[in-house]
C-alpha cells in the first residue's frame, strides 16, 4: 500500500478560465461553454477530440448530463465530481488518472459554479435531510477561531496579528488588481482593511473569499503526446488528496493553529514530486485563502516556513509577487473570487500562465525563469474537518 503518484506521466496541454464575477447575464451552461471553448482553443482541439470529461460542481447541477447537454457532446463519458470547495481540483485528479491508466488518450477536467442565482449572499450548502443536530455555523466563523489560537500559541499580539491578516488580504487585492479575470480589481491598504467591521470573530467581510460565478477547464493527455499539441505543456508532478475524518472537532489536543489534513497531504505531494525544500524549489503557489487566517496557517502547513514564523514572513513580504516564494499571484480566492467548483482549476490556470511566461509583465512572479514548479492547494470544509488537495505542476520532464 503506497501513494505512488503519476509524476511525468500526464500533461496539461490547454486551459481556459472565465472571469470570476457576478455573472448576472450568464447561467451555468454559458460558463461551461465559455470555459471549455477557451480550453479547446488553447489546446487546438475540438470537443470530439476529447475522449472523456470530468465535470466538477459543488451544487450548481447534478450528473454528467449537466455538461453533455450544453456542450452537445455525443456519446462521451462525463462524470460529475463533488468534493466541497476542492471540487475543481478533484475533477482534474480524476481526468489525469484516467489518462495515466491508459483508458483514454485525452480528457477534460472542467469546474464551474453558478452561485449568484440564490438571492442570498455567501455560499449556501445544499440541504441534505438530517436529524437537525449538525452545526449551522458559517465557514467564516469556524476559520475565525484560528486567529486568536495562533496569536496565543506564538505570543503574537492580537492587534499585530490583525495587521498580518490584513497584509495577506492587501497582497491578494494588489495581485488581483493586476488580473483582468479577477472579481475584485481594487487595491486595499492594510489600514483600510483593519477598519472594516467584524462579522465573524475578528474577521471582516474583507477577510473572506469573494463569492463569484465562474468556470475553468484543463485538457490533459499522456506526457509523451503533449508536444503534438503545445511546445509548453505543464507536466503533472504530484496529485495528493486527503479527506479528514472530522476527528479534529472532537480531539481535545487540537489547537486550531494547523490543519493536519493539509500537513499529511503536503508530505504525500512532496514525496510524489521529489521535493525536499518547497520554499526554494517552488516558483509559486496558489493556496486556498478562503479566509485570511487560512493563508497564514497554510504557509506553515505547506512547509513554506517554520512553525510560528508565517506571521513575520508575511510581514517581511516573503510571499509577495516579488518575494522569495510568490503566493496567490492571481489574487487568490480573496480577490479572484470563489466559485467552489471552479477554484481548483483556476489555481492551475495561474500556474499555466506563470510557468509558461504568459502572465502579464506587471503580474509576473519574481521566480520566473529561475524555478519551474508550481503548487496549487485547494481545501474544503473547516478546521478539524476538511478535505485537502495539492497538485504540483512543472514545465520540465526531469
Amino acid at each position, binding site marked *: 500500500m503506497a501513494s505512488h503518484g503519476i509524476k511525468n506521466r500526464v500533461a496539461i496541454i490547454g486551459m481556459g478560465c472565465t472571469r470570476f464575477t457576478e455573472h448576472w447575464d450568464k447561467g451555468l451552461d454559458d460558463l461551461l461553454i465559455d470555459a471549455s471553448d477557451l480550453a479547446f482553443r488553447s489546446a487546438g482541439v475540438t470537443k470530439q477530440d476529447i475522449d472523456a470529461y470530468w465535470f466538477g460542481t459543488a451544487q450548481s447541477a447534478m450528473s454528467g448530463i449537466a455538461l453533455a447537454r450544453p456542450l452537445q457532446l455525443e456519446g462521451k463519458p462525463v462524470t460529475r465530481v463533488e468534493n466541497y470547495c476542492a471540487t475543481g481540483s478533484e475533477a482534474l485528479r480524476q481526468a489525469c488518472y484516467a489518462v495515466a491508466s491508459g483508458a483514454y488518450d485525452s480528457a477534460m477536467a472542467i469546474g464551474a459554479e453558478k452561485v449568484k442565482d440564490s438571492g442570498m449572499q455567501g455560499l449556501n450548502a445544499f440541504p441534505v435531510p438530517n436529524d437537525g*443536530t449538525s452545526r449551522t455555523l458559517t465557514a467564516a466563523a469556524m476559520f475565525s477561531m484560528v486567529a486568536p489560537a495562533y496569536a496565543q500559541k506564538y505570543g503574537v499580539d492580537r492587534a499585530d496579528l490583525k495587521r498580518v491578516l490584513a497584509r495577506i488580504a492587501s497582497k491578494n487585492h494588489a495581485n488581483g488588481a493586476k488580473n483582468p479575470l479577477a472579481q475584485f480589481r481594487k487595491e486595499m491598504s492594510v489600514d483600510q482593511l483593519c477598519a472594516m467591521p467584524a462579522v465573524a*470573530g475578528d474577521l471582516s467581510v474583507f477577510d473572506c473569499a469573494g463569492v463569484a460565478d465562474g468556470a475553468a477547464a484543463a485538457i490533459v493527455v499522456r506526457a509523451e503526446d503533449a508536444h503534438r499539441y503545445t511546445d509548453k505543456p505543464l507536466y503533472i508532478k504530484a496529485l495528493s488528496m486527503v479527506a479528514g475524518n472530522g476527528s479534529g472537532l472532537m480531539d481535545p489536543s487540537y489547537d486550531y493553529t494547523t490543519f493536519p489534513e493539509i500537513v499529511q497531504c503536503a508530505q504525500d505531494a512532496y514525496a510524489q514530486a521529489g521535493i525536499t525544500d518547497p520554499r526554494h524549489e517552488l516558483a509559486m503557489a496558489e493556496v486556498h485563502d478562503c479566509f485570511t487566517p487560512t493563508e497564514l496557517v497554510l504557509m506553515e502547513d505547506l512547509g513554506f516556513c517554520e512553525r510560528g514564523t508565517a506571521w513575520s514572513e508575511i510581514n517581511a513580504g516573503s510571499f509577495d509577487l516579488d518575494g522569495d516564494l510568490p503566493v496567490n499571484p492571481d489574487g487568490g480566492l480573496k480577490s479572484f473570487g470563489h466559485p467552489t467548483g471552479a477554484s481548483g482549476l483556476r489555481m492551475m490556470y495561474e500556474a499555466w500562465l506563470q510557468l509558461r511566461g504568459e502572465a502579464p509583465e506587471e503580474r509576473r512572479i519574481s521566480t520566473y525563469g529561475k524555478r519551474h514548479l508550481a503548487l496549487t492547494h485547494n481545501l474544503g470544509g473547516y478546521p478539524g474537518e476538511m478535505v485537502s488537495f495539492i497538485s504540483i505542476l512543472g514545465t520540465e520532464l526531469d
Partner: protein
Amino acid sequence: MTAKSTGPTKGILAWGTHLPYRRLDRSTIAAVAGTGGGKGMRTVASFDEDATTMGAEAARAAVGSVNGVSPGSIWFSTVAVPYLDKTNATTIHAVLRMSPDVAAYDAIGSVKSGVGALRAGLSGDAPALVVSSDLRSGLPGSGDEASGGDGAAALLLGSSTDGPLLAEFIGRGVATEEFLDRWRVPGDSRSKLWEERFGETRYAALAPAAWAAALAAATVQPGDIDHLIVTGTHDRANASVARSLGARTEALVDSLAATVGNTGTAHPALLLASALERATPQQIIALVVLADGVEVLLFRTTDALAAYAPLHTVAEQVAGGGSITYGRYLAWRGMLTVEPPRRPEPPRPSATASGRSRDWKFGFVGSVDGEGEIHMPPSRLDPERRAMAGAYGTIVTYTVDKLSYSLNPPVVFAVVDFDGGGRLPIELTDVDAAEVAIGARVEMTFRKLFTSDGVHNYFWKARPIRDGHADKGAN
C-alpha cells in the same frame, strides 16, 4: 395519615425546577407600550426555549437529584403547547432516556391541567414524573404580560415503597364548578377576562368546602399549616382566599410575583418546590390552587427532606438571571416582527433521521472508541456509549458569528472540552457575546434550535454555569 388509609403512603420523592435566565424589568414596559408594566421582574423564556424544553430541564433536575427511583409514567402539562396531536411528553421521555416501558402523556390546554396531573400522579400504582411548564404573556401593556412569568417544575411522585418520601401526601379537598373567569380560544395569543369581582366571589365561595375536606382528611387544623400556598391566575382571589383560611399569616408562601411572575400551569408545582426548599422536617405544606374551582393538597415533610439537595434551587435561579430589553422580549414572543436573517431558512429536520439518532439528538449520548476518545455524535464503530448531558465543560475557544442563520443573532459558538473527556464545538445560549471568555465553565441545556414546517428542532446547547452548583464540576 393518608387521605385514604389503604395502601402505602404517597408523596413526593424528588423535585426539580427550571427558571429561564432572562428577566424583564416591568418598569420598562410602559415606555414602549404606553401602558401596563409595574414593579419588579418577570422571567422570560429564551428564544430557544418552549414549554417542552423548560419542562425537560426541570425533569432533568428532578431525576438527577434522586438516585435509584425511575418513574413508570411521565405527565406533561402546559397551556403553551408546542405540539397538538403529537405528544410532547415523549420528547421529555427521550431527553431523560427513559426505557420504552415508561409511559408518557400530555395533560394540556388549561391552567388547571397542572394540578390535575399532580393529583393523578399521587394516585397511580407506580412513581409518576409530573412535569408542568408554561410561558405566560398577553398583549403588550396587558396585566397578563406584566404579571406572567415563564418556568417549569417537575415532581417525582410515588409511594414510600418506591424510595424515601420527602413529603407525604396527607389530605385533599376538591370543589369544582363551571364559571367563566378567564378564557382563550385555541390559536389566540391572549386570554380574555370577565369582570374581576365575579371570579373572586366564586373562588371565595368554593374554597371553604375544599379546605375543610382536606383538613379533615389529614386531621389537622388551620393553625397547624407551616407553609400555605394559594395560587391561581386570579391575583385578588388568591389574596382574599389566603386571608380566609385561618392559617397563620407568616405561613403564607411568597408567590414569586416580584421576581418570577405567575407561571400559570407550572406555578403550583413551582411554589410547592419553593416551599419544600425552605421547609424543615415534619412541617405541613398546604397547596391551594384556584383554577375553575379549588384544589387543596396537604403534605407533611419527612426527615428525609433534610438530606435532599436539588440541582438548581428556585432561590438560586431567582437570584441569578440576566436582563432582556422589552423590545427583544416582544420579538422573541412574536409580538414584534423583526427583519429575519438573510440566509436560507433551515430545512425541517427529518423524522426518520431524528428517530435513528434519538439517543444523540434528545439524550446527548456520545460513544467511546477503543482508545478512550469520545465521539459526539456517537459512532457505530465504538464499543461503548457515554451519556454527556450531565457533563460540565470548559470553553477552549469561541467565536461570534454575525452571518449565520439565527433567530437571535449573533450566534455565540464555543469549542467545549468536557470534564472526563470529549470535545464538541457547540452553540452557547443564555449568554451575552461580550461576557464569553476562554476558560469559562459551561453545562448542557436542552433547547429548540428552530422550527421549520412546524417541526420543532430540539437539540442541545451549552450555557454558562451561573448558580451554586458550579463548583461541583470545577477542576
